């Protein structure tokens, strides 16, 4: 296992973080360092062990499927950059 510059480029694209070409090898070095240290997990025998997801032993509860909040457009938009007519705005996506 080794993370090369192309892999860093792919991960950065998936993560939506701009990375310059000059930064690629620094990132590769750092990620290889961390992932190399994590490799030790391979020595643990986990045959037949059910993966643990979540942090609790309690059953997650469901609530009634009802609208309990809403009608607060002003609050929803109050931290947005350049909201318009009750909407968020983004760069043009359809030509």
């Amino acid at each position, binding site marked *: 296992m080794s993370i090369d510059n192309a892999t860093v480029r792919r991960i950065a694209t998936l*993560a939506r973080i701009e990375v310059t070409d000059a930064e690629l090898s620094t990132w590769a070095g750092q990620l290889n360092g961390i992932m190399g240290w994590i490799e030790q*997990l391979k020595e643990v025998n*986990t045959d037949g062990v059910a993966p643990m997801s979540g942090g609790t032993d309690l059953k997650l509860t469901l609530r009634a499927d009802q609208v309990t909040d809403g009608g607060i457009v002003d609050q929803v938009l109050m*931290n947005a950059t350049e909201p318009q007519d009750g909407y968020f705005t983004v*760069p043009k996506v359809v030509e």
Partner: protein
Amino acid sequence: MSSELTALTIAEARSRLRRKEFSALELTEAHLSAMERARHLNAYITETADLARERAKDSDKRIAAGEARAMDGIPIGMKDLFCTEGVQTTAASHILEGFTPPYESTVSQKLRDAGTVMLGKLNLDEFAMGSANITSYFGAVKNPWVPKGRNAELVPGGSSGGSAAATSAHLCMAATGTDTGGSIRQPASFCGLVGVKPTYGRCSRWGVVAFASSLDQAGPITRNVRDAAIMLKAMCGHDPKDSTSANLPVPDFEAVLGQGVKGLRIGIPKEYRPDGLNAEVNALWNKGIDWLEKAGATIVDISLPHTKYALPTYYIVAPAEASSNLARYDGVRFGLRVPGKNLDDMYAKTRAAGFGAEVKRRIMIGTYVLSAGYYDAYYVKAQKVRALIVRDFNEAFAKVDAILTPTAPSAAFGINDKIDTITMYLNDVFTVPASLAGIPAASVPAGLTAEGLPLGLQVLTKRWDEETLFRVCQSLEDAAGFKGLAPL
């Protein structure tokens, strides 16, 4: 008078406020002036003096009317990871600078309802990712403790570094913290304080900026065990807005404090004593064992065989969850926006400019371990090892009532020390296993190093058994007689 007021414990201030020996406003003013004098510590990101005065006046009215609430008039600091209505909440990140929530997190609301007075929002590692409070966009926090005989500025630990520095320097009577892998306990140890991470699910996570949702838990940082019991009770309780919040009664933690440890079985895990363990840490741990034995507990040697795999497991699980949680910071709905030539470019530029190096590192690791082809090899593997770590604890708690370990592998280190990434991660080697298992854990100040720096001991109990946790903590505090105070 003013420094006398800031030196009080919550328990003392609570009764003296009710006897009207001083007002909540006087108590708040004393803290606000202390904060002004100690700005060089960089403990607060945002001070909320006017709001604090308003709330202190409300407390005084309730106290006068004989309607005092559990923590009425007690000035506290709020880690800047809790969303606070009308008050900037940054998570110590550039990407959230200026973000003002129109709502209050459940935990901070509960503390408001209990009558506490919020003095301001405390500094932390960016998005709570760090063990030294040096990754904050708003600058590093300084530990009020200084080593004897050498000139050095020390870190307060992290990520709740502002919470620990402020509580230690009497810039608040106590503070909220959050703990994902040790972020309450390690700073408490570095600053000579009590820090409690309750069972996962005790405190609601609603309104707390998310880092790793299956690990994040809020808790108090205080100057003694009783104060921690008082404050934790005010923070806990079921919240329908967090599906992982436990619908269980909250015990009166303060009520168990006098019960001692007579008859309790205390486990000492051999895996927490690796070769090369710091000699002072090792000696203090031995002292702690001795104290509990003298107090009537039975000491039992135990094994938690997967301990050494906890940290690498954590560095898959936590970044994976973080990479998903932090996807929301995209420049669209709140926070920083950096313009781009199209939508994807705006996302990438916003996130490149808004996140610091450590946050990016964890998002990249998380994205990698969740990506196609690696998900089973890393993420699922880590989830399985996590299950084995839980099993270790379950087997141990069949034999013992509580476990005693050191909190951190060393005392506080220098702000300017050059520390590589993995060595920094190793700060949490003793705290991460309890986070992965979701069990309650606390750090109690137990002694000083030869340089006069505080060291803590960690107590662990089984899920939902904070009462035993507090009994053991109180016993350690009584025996340690820790009178250490940061130079003010």
